[in-house]
């Protein structure tokens, strides 16, 4: 029997993917080229698929009879545990790509660590998700370089995207205090240990993209404990509108 202490940790994992997957799905039919419409729909599908598994398991671990849909469609913003980075508006294609690069790279490192979790379900989900996230990073990384080293306009937009998102990257590596025991027991990864390798790869790709890493010291935080930006409330109002209008209905 899995430890109920896993519940908040699974929400953090699942909510990141659900909210980012939602933002990505907003591109559907509106991308710069048809190939990117397909790629972004595919990435969104991967992320929501990951969220589905993680929230399903979260519901089992919680043991209160909530399934993945109850968790996705009946929680209010303050009960969500995603990092703020995931909920920011989709922005232009540059913002979307930079976010996928930052979060995808974090995910690859996180799944790598979690694939040896002592919890077999977590390890299984991580192993599957790792393959998907590797593809997301490759896709986003190639675009970061193209946009950064493309035209003057694309360089300017890519740099603006990096600058805008940078203060939201730090939260990914802040280890929630309520997970300390889970980390000690080898159930979840210590995200603070991922920052070094993440930063090394970010530096490498941004350098190849002729982009610079901003010198912001302050990092925004709050999502991991349920204090979000104003954007999440609107996102959830849209996402939950049909489900909440028909309580108890099966779809």
């Amino acid at each position, binding site marked *: 029997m899995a430890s109920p202490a896993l519940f908040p940790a699974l929400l953090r994992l699942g909510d990141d993917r659900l909210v980012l997957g939602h933002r990505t799905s907003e591109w559907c039919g509106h991308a710069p080229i048809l190939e990117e419409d397909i790629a972004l*729909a595919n990435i969104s599908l991967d992320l929501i698929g990951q969220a589905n598994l993680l929230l399903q398991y979260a519901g089992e671990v919680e043991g209160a009879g909530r399934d*993945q849909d109850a968790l996705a469609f009946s929680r209010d913003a303050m009960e969500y545990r995603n990092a703020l980075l995931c909920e920011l508006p989709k922005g232009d294609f540059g913002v979307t790509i930079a976010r996928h690069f930052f979060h995808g790279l974090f995910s690859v490192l996180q799944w790598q660590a979690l694939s040896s979790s002592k919890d077999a379900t977590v390890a299984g989900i991580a192993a599957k998700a790792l393959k998907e996230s590797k593809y997301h990073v490759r896709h986003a990384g190639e675009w970061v370089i193209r946009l950064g080293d493309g035209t003057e306009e694309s360089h300017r937009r890519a740099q603006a995207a990096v600058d805008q998102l940078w203060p939201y990257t730090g939260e990914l590596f802040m280890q929630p205090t309520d997970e300390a025991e889970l980390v000690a027991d080898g159930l979840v990864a210590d995200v603070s240990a991922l920052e070094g390798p993440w930063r090394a790869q970010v530096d490498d790709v941004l350098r190849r993209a002729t982009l610079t890493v901003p010198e912001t010291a302050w990092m925004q935080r709050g999502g991991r404990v349920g204090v979000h930006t104003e954007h999440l409330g609107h996102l959830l109002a849209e996402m939950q509108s049909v489900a909440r209008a028909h309580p108890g209905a099966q779809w």
Partner: protein
Amino acid sequence: MTTQTPVADDAARLAAFEARIAADESIEPKDWMPERYRSQLIRMMSQHAHSEVVGMLPEGNWITRAPSLRRKMILLAKVQDEGGHGLYIYCGTETLGVDRQELVQQLLDGKAKYSSIFNYPTLSWADIGAIGWLVDGAAIVNQTMLAKASYGPYARAMVRICKEENFHKKQGYEFMVTLARGTPAQKAMAQESLNRWWWPSLMMFGPHDADSPNSDELKKWGVKRKSNDELRQRFVNLTIAQVKAIDLTVPDPDLRYDEASGDWITGPIDWDEFWRVVKGHGPCNSERLGARRKAHDEGRWVRDAAMAYAEKQQRNNRETTERQQ
């Protein structure tokens, strides 16, 4: 030395071409074909590709509001498939000697058509089920015939695409079954949606045979194998059985079963509405085209960047090679 004039030459080639069509041979990109055959295929195939792409919009409209994660994933996968169909058919059209950019430009300029069905709005979540069931269902009836089309690349594309469309239709019907057997509000939502999509789905097969300007030629060349009315009848028969199975009704007081033919006979189709939408006055014509234009305009800097980067890479590679020589 040959004394044949070019005209006689063409006449001979045309006769050979028509003999191949008659023998059910497949025409391939490198084969000689009459210009009219080529242009008709370009028109038809590019319209089909545009329809797949524009069709992503009405369904995409509900992805963010899907009421369960499972349905959200099904819808995302479906819309992704439709984009894939568009890409695949654009590539097939390029075998006829046009390029995709040119075709997309025709769409954006309002010079190319796409299926009128996508000029109707998706107003409730049930519309996602109705589209999968009825719109993909009607498309399948059409495309199953096109899978036997004389032009090889089109026929092969249709075989592959039809498999996925069948899957979409199955999922769409299963979606409607779930609503119809759900709460009273869900059942009402399903019925309301069927009421709006029924007639536009029948119009997807095009005008009656007598009023269909391109039909004869397309039939003669083995591109179309069945008439609009034959296909529409097939769809009606298939669909009415499914409507009855889930205890819904179609909005047609004149619908009747004809014992002799075994066909369900519908009341008259409102062709004024059909032509109005074709001519650009459907509820969403300007939104759909507007959305495509906006995506195209806002994506220009991205496409320019990709091109500029590729050119830089080529230049770098060339310089490296020159240095090595």
